[in-house]
Each structure stands twice: as structure tokens, then as C-alpha cells.
């Protein structure tokens, strides 16, 4: 029973309710401490000098004048971060991305850093560092980068995933092919084939809190790092490896996180802060400016995607293919591979082939962003699906229903699906009043589907019962958006006590075993599972103590509604013992009562969503306004429905921004033109309507409560849903995201011409 992951239907008491969150008060009073909100005695201010060039040889760095400036305590370059990566190419990439070595690889690449007594001194010191660059040819466009004459971004990168191994370096870092069946035969059998090409521009997670940390390392090799991160254990391991520290001697404490969305799963500047601190032998606080966040962290890929779908007149897809080119920035990634895996995941296809090309360009290293790579692939595929449905005169929803994947479908990326939610979300779309609402003049409607894997991973949790019967949880997955609330509900449920009796704490790296990051929609899934096991662990102990107290065998004791009960008629005189009773007596029954769990939470259920969008497009200016939006998604089980809705709405809002206005703009010199919230246009409050949500609960068979991750999938459908809506009203297929007014205007004019 203890570590049984199988879903068992039950009537929930705590799970599924909507109590206030435990960190709410701190967050509404300004007391919550984020990355930049802590101070250490004697702390210095760190600042980073960054390359203004997209690609340049660094021939010399002269730091002597900066070092001599009064108040400067440390200046570092890549020499202070020697290569300790021992052949681990991913780790070396991280090292080189943290601080350029012989070449600056993108506008914003760090080349040196200082620590000084205050900000003006640090700023002044940066100006005194002389870097001699030899400018090299650069490439920032994903399609340009694969042309034969394109400059090579990384001479050490040879295309992987192809056979035989290539003999010369390439900007194509990886080729990833997925699929099954015979697509050529499938296309031959088709009555109609639609082929289309799409482009999407680079976007950023746009978390409101810039990266910030406070590092303190001494000459004794011990260190502390306070940091805004989605994964403090992973940060600890990475930083310790890069700095040559013993992992145990570096304690990383996660701050409250002011938004991550994947962008805080990667180490960007924390090793710099640690190296500065070690050199100065003083604590160093390093905060990024918004400009640095845009130029030097991990935005998404820009993409260029070719889609081909063949269909019978009866509406069955006979074959589908997609060739997906995603840029990785200046370091190899798996972003095109994820696009290739997710592109057709919603459909039941006999013949499917997808090929992802991960391509290097002189832009910042691409990072994870909420269901990474899936939104762009969904934009291309779901737009084409609509085109195909229109061509054969079928309603796009009916067409999707006819071809939707179901339990037993062999997925386009390989494995066979268990029970999944794409069919039910489509059925819910059909029934939703949104679909029947009358559109006004100049308005169009679109819908689209989306998929994300979700995953679990390494998780370690403690559950301690206090002397008064209240319970503390010690959790190693950072709380990004309310997981302390949902995890407390799960503990309350399992122990049979009120939610208010549980307090959930996020631990530092010294207090628990390793936990993977809060990513892949795993926080509530994995730590939830771990807490269930820890609670069952504690319940076993509680039952034993009750048995000892009563002097009966433990097999005669059951735990129900927060109390130990003696089973059977022979024990009917024994009064049940509550958790409070057992806690109060604990000092005489064996000491502290605790539960612990260390697991690999596998079996995260795949997740599907369908979105509906109404948009208004000004016929003269092509200004757009989203007038109605509905999200329908399978949550497995919504532990705290408010925060599930919040995830649905937040993902949709980010997707709407991506679809309409957000994009990185580089000039001909490879310099980012809009590294700020003025011209990198995330949706503001007046841009959006209320976002309606419908939670479906198709239990995940591999979680005791049926929980699936919910955090990411909601960003997948919006690009395509909006594309289909704009195309509906503008009468022209939009193939380039963002669909900014100038692009819509041009598409309409090109069609007229």
C-alpha cells in the first residue's frame, strides 16, 4: 500500500476544495522574500560586462584599471572559471554560456564581472575594463543559419542523430526523426493534400522578477547561495561542479520565485556570483537588469516549419509529415526534437513522420518555456488541420474528433497511449456555449488543440508531526504558483486532518535529499505523490503506537479520518486515538513521529487541452482584440481548482501574447532591438478578456489521486487558436507568428494582390 502509485477512486474531503494559500499573507503585505530581497553583512554589489557584438573573437581583456578603482573588491573573467567539466559537453556549454571564453557568441554574452562596495563603483569599474574584440560574421536567422555559406557558430558541434557521423562541423546540431508507417504511401492514398510553411519568432518567458542571487563563498570551500530558481538542488550540483566545490558544502536556499515558466530551470549568472564572492571573500549580490534578462537568459526558439497532411474525402488523415527547424541559440539543445515529438501527438495517425532540426545561431542559449517547443509545432499543425478540414468541407472540430488519438493509439512520438483527454476536451468544445455564441461584425472564431508530456522525477519529502498534532511538510520542489497549498491539501487528505493543521515549507538543499526541479508540470504531481507516501509512512508509525498504547496487535488498528481505530468487536471498548492524542503522547511512545519518502515519481500522465478564441480585427488597421477565450483541459484531478484555473488562464495569456505581439527583433548587426517591456509587448490587463475555464478530470492511472500535471499544456493551443480565429475573420491564412497588425495587414494585401 505504502508506495502504491495506482489510482484508486475515493471520495475526497480536502482535495478539490479551495482554501486560502499559506503564503498569501506574506505576498499581499510585501513580506515575501524574492531573489533580490535579502542582504548579508558586508555584501558587495556584482555587475556583469556583456558583449555588444553578436559574434566576436575576444583577443584581450584588460582589467587592471578596474581592479585599481577604489571600492572594487574582485574582477573576474573566464580565467577565474577554469574548465573543470571533464568532457561533459552540456556542462561545458553551461560554463561557456555563463562567461565567454575565447569568443562572444551573442549580443549580451557575459565577458567579465566585478564586485564592488556599491552600484556606482561597480558601474564605473565595468567601464574601465577594456575588451579587445575582433568582430566575426554572425547569423541570427534560423533559415539563414543552414545555408552553405552561413558562418559556423560552434566549430566543436557536429550534427548528431545522423549516420554516418559527419566529418565537418555544422550549425545543424541535431536531427531528430519520429513517426511510424509509410508516409509516402499514405500521401499517395490521400484524396487531398495540404502543404504549408510557417514561421514563429523568438519569445521570452517574461517573468516579472529578474534573476537575482546572493552568493557567499569562503576560502574554506564552504558556500551559500540564496537564489530565485525553479530547482535549487540542480543549481547546487551545477554550480558546485563548475566551481570545483564539494556538493555538500554548497547550501542553496531558494527564494520566493517571481515567475519562472522554465526560464529559471537553467543556471545563467549564479556561478559568476559565486566566483566573485570566492575571489573577494565577501558576500556578493548579483541582480540582472531587465535588459540583461532579455539579452542573456534563455528565451524560446524562433522556428520555420513545413507541414504536409493528406486526407481522404471521408475525413480520415492518411499521412502527415512535419519538418521543423528550431534555433537553439549558440549552444546545442533539444528544442526541435521536442517540436518533432509533440507536433502530431493529438492525432491517431497510421502514417506519420516528423523531423526536427536543432540549429545554432548567434542568439542567447534557448531555455525551457512552458511546454517547451510545443506551441510552435501546434501552431503549424493545427493551422494546417483547419485548412484541410475546410478543403474537404468538414467542420474543423468534427474533423479533429474523427482523427483524435485515444486509449490504445500509437502516439506519433512512439509509445501507445493509456486513457487520455483529447477526445473529451473536443467533446466539451462541441458542447460549450462559446461555440454557439453569435459573433459580431469583424470578429472571427478559432479553436485548436494542444499536448504536453508532463513528467515526474526524483523527489524527496519529509513529513513531521508536531507535539500538538499539527503537521509540517518539508518539500524540495520550489513553489511557483501555489503548490504549498495543493501539497498541504494532499497531506490533510491522506492523514484525515483539516487543511489548516498542515504547514508546508520549502527546504534548502541541506535539509533534504535531491529533488529535481519544479518543471515539466511536476511539482504537485511528484511532491504530491511523495507526500502521500510519507504520510502513509507516518500513519504506519501512528498505528503502531496506537497498538502499543492499547496493547493489541497492529494488524487490528486502522487509520480513519485522522484517528487510529481498533478494528473488530473485541476491541470495541477501546476509544479511538486522534492524531493529536498520539502526538501529545509521542515522547513516551518512541519519540518524534515522522514520515519520509524518497522516490522517482514516474508515470506522469500526458495532458491535452482544447482552446476556443474569438478575435476582432479592425478592417482598416488590422488592430486585434481578443474578445472571448475559453480553455478546456484535462487535469487528472484538480487538487486546488482555483490554482488549476489560474494555470489554465496564465498559460492562455502567455500564448495570446506570443500569438499577437511578443517577439525578439534583431538588427543587421545581430543586436537585440527590444530588450525591455516597452517594445517586448507582453499582454497588459486591458488587452485580455476574462478567460473562461473548464476543468476535465480524467484520472491518471499512475497516481494515487489521479493527478496529472497542469502547468504547461495551456500555452500550447493559443497560437493556433488565434491563428485560426484571425484567418476566419481576415479571410487569409496567417502563417507567421506573432500576428502583429503590420503582418496581418500585409497578409491581407498580399492576398488581394
Amino acid at each position, binding site marked *: 500500500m505504502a508506495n502504491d502509485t495506482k489510482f484508486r477512486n475515493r471520495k475526497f474531503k480536502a482535495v478539490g476544495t479551495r482554501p486560502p494559500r499559506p503564503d498569501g499573507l506574506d505576498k499581499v503585505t510585501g513580506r515575501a522574500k524574492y531573489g533580490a530581497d535579502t542582504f548579508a553583512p558586508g555584501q558587495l554589489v556584482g555587475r556583469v560586462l556583456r558583449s555588444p557584438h553578436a559574434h566576436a573573437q575576444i583577443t584581450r581583456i584588460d582589467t587592471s584599471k578596474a581592479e585599481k578603482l577604489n571600492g572594487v573588491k574582485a574582477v573576474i573573467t573566464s580565467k577565474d572559471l577554469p574548465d573543470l567539466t571533464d568532457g561533459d559537453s*552540456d556542462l561545458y556549454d553551461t560554463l561557456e554560456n555563463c562567461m565567454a571564453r575565447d569568443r562572444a557568441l551573442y549580443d549580451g554574452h557575459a565577458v567579465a564581472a566585478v564586485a564592488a562596495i556599491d552600484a556606482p563603483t561597480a558601474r564605473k569599474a565595468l567601464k574601465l575594463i577594456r575588451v579587445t574584440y575582433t568582430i566575426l560574421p554572425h547569423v541570427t536567422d534560423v533559415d539563414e543559419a543552414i545555408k552553405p555559406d552561413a558562418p559556423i557558430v560552434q566549430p566543436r558541434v557536429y550534427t*548528431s*542523430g*545522423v*549516420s554516418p557521423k559527419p566529418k565537418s562541423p555544422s550549425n545543424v546540431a*541535431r*536531427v*531528430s*526523426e*519520429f*513517426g511510424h508507417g509509410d508516409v509516402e504511401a499514405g500521401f499517395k492514398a490521400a484524396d487531398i493534400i495540404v502543404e504549408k510553411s510557417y514561421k514563429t519568432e523568438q519569445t521570452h*518567458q517574461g517573468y516579472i522578477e529578474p534573476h537575482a542571487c546572493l552568493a557567499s563563498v569562503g576560502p574554506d570551500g564552504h558556500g551559500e547561495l540564496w537564489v530565485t530558481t525553479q530547482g535549487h538542488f540542480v543549481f547546487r550540483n551545477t554550480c558546485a561542479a563548475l566551481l570545483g566545490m564539494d556538493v555538500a558544502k554548497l547550501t542553496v536556499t531558494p527564494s520566493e520565485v517571481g515567475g*519562472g*515558466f*522554465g*526560464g529559471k*530551470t537553467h543556471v545563467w549568472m549564479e556561478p559568476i556570483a559565486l566566483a566573485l564572492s570566492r575571489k573577494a571573500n565577501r558576500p556578493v549580490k548579483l541582480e540582472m537588469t531587465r535588459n540583461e534578462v532579455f539579452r542573456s537568459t534563455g528565451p524560446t526558439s524562433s522556428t520555420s516549419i513545413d507541414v504536409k497532411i493528406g486526407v481522404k474525402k471521408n475525413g480520415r488523415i492518411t499521412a502527415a509529415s512535419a519538418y521543423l527547424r528550431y534555433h537553439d541559440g549558440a549552444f546545442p539543445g*533539444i528544442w526541435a*526534437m*521536442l517540436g*518533432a*515529438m509533440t507536433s502530431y501527438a493529438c492525432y491517431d495517425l497510421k502514417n506519420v513522420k516528423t*523531423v526536427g532540426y536543432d540549429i545554432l545561431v548567434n542568439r542567447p542559449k534557448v531555455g*525551457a*518555456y*512552458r*511546454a*517547451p517547443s510545443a506551441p510552435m509545432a501546434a501552431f503549424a499543425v493545427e493551422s494546417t488541420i483547419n485548412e484541410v478540414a475546410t478543403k474537404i468541407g468538414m467542420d474543423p472540430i468534427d474533423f479533429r474528433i474523427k482523427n483524435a488519438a485515444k486509449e490504445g493509439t500509437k502516439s506519433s*512520438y*512512439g*509509445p*501507445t*497511449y*493509456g486513457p487520455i483527454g483529447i477526445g473529451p476536451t473536443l467533446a466539451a468544445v462541441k458542447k460549450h456555449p462559446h461555440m454557439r455564441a453569435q459573433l459580431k461584425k469583424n470578429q472571427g472564431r478559432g479553436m485548436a488543440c494542444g499536448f*504536453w*508530456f*508532463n*513528467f*515526474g*522525477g*526524483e523527489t524527496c519529502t519529509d513529513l513531521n508531526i508536531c507535539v500538538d498534532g499539527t503537521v509540517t511538510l518539508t518539500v524540495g520542489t520550489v513553489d511557483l504558483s501555489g503548490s504549498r497549498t495543493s501539497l498541504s491539501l494532499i497531506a490533510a487528505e491522506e492523514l484525515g486532518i483539516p487543511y489548516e493543521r498542515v504547514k508546508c515549507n520549502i527546504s534548502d538543499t541541506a535539509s533534504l535529499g535531491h529533488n529535481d526541479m519544479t*518543471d*515539466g*508540470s*511536476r511539482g504537485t504531481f511528484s511532491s504530491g505523490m511523495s507526500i502521500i507516501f510519507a504520510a502513509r509512512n507516518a500513519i504506519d508509525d501512528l498505528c503502531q503506537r496506537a497498538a502499543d498504547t492499547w496493547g493489541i496487535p497492529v494488524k487490528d488498528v486502522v487509520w480513519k479520518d485522522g484517528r487510529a481505530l481498533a478494528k473488530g468487536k473485541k476491541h470495541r471498548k477501546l476509544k479511538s486515538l486522534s492524531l493529536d492524542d498520539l502526538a501529545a503522547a509521542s515522547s513516551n511512545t518512541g519519540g518524534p513521529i515522522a514520515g519520509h519518502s524518497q522516490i*522517482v515519481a*514516474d*508515470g*506522469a500522465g500526458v495532458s491535452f487541452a482544447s482552446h476556443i478564441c474569438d478575435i476582432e480585427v479592425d478592417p482598416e488597421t488590422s488592430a486585434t482584440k481578443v474578445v472571448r477565450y475559453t480553455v478546456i483541459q484535462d487535469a487528472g484531478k484538480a487538487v486546488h481548482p482555483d490554482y488549476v484555473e489560474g494555470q489554465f488562464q496564465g498559460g492562455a495569456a502567455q500564448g495570446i501574447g506570443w500569438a499577437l505581439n511578443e517577439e525578439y527583433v534583431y538588427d543587421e548587426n545581430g543586436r537585440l532591438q527590444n530588450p525591455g517591456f516597452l517594445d517586448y509587448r507582453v499582454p497588459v490587463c486591458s488587452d485580455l478578456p476574462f478567460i473562461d475555464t473548464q476543468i476535465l478530470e480524467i484520472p491518471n492511472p*499512475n497516481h494515487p489521486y489521479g493527478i496529472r500535471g497542469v*502547468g*504547461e499544456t495551456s500555452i500550447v493551443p493559443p497560437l493556433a487558436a488565434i491563428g485560426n480565429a484571425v484567418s476566419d475573420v481576415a479571410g487569409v491564412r496567417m502563417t507567421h507568428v506573432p500576428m502583429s497588425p503590420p503582418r496581418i495587414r500585409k497578409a491581407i494585401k498580399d492576398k488581394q494582390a
Partner: protein
Amino acid sequence: MLKVCLSGPLQAAADGAASVSISAMTIRELLRELVEQYPGMQKQLDDGIAVSVNGEIFRDSWSEEIPESAEIFLLPRIQGG
């Protein structure tokens, strides 16, 4: 004997084979056997791998027993946001 399907990116390491036959009781045995047959697979394992057993994806639980005639699919390890 289990039929182990390899997703595209892993096929290059197995001389282009889409599937291989392996006798194994657990994921750990399966992976050990795989590397023995195709030494090039070691790099893929180091980069990270996920094993789908009858549609359920295992990233790290390599002691998992594999049921007879199970559908085994080897995928590259993925990242999330």
C-alpha cells in the same frame, strides 16, 4: 525476447535500426544489454533517456520489471518548463 523500439534520434546509435531484440527482466538489464550490442548507445544514455513500458514513461526507475510482451519504446530524455 523483448522488441525494443528506438525513437528516431536513438536509431543512429544503433546503426539505423528501428527496433532491436533484447532479452531482459528490468529496464536496467535492458539498457545494459543495449549498450553491449551497440556501444554507441552509451553517449545517448549519458545524455539522458526515457523508457516507455506499455505507454508509461520511466525516466529514472530502472529497477522496474518489464512485463512479458510489453511494448518498449526508448525516447530521448525531455525537458519541461
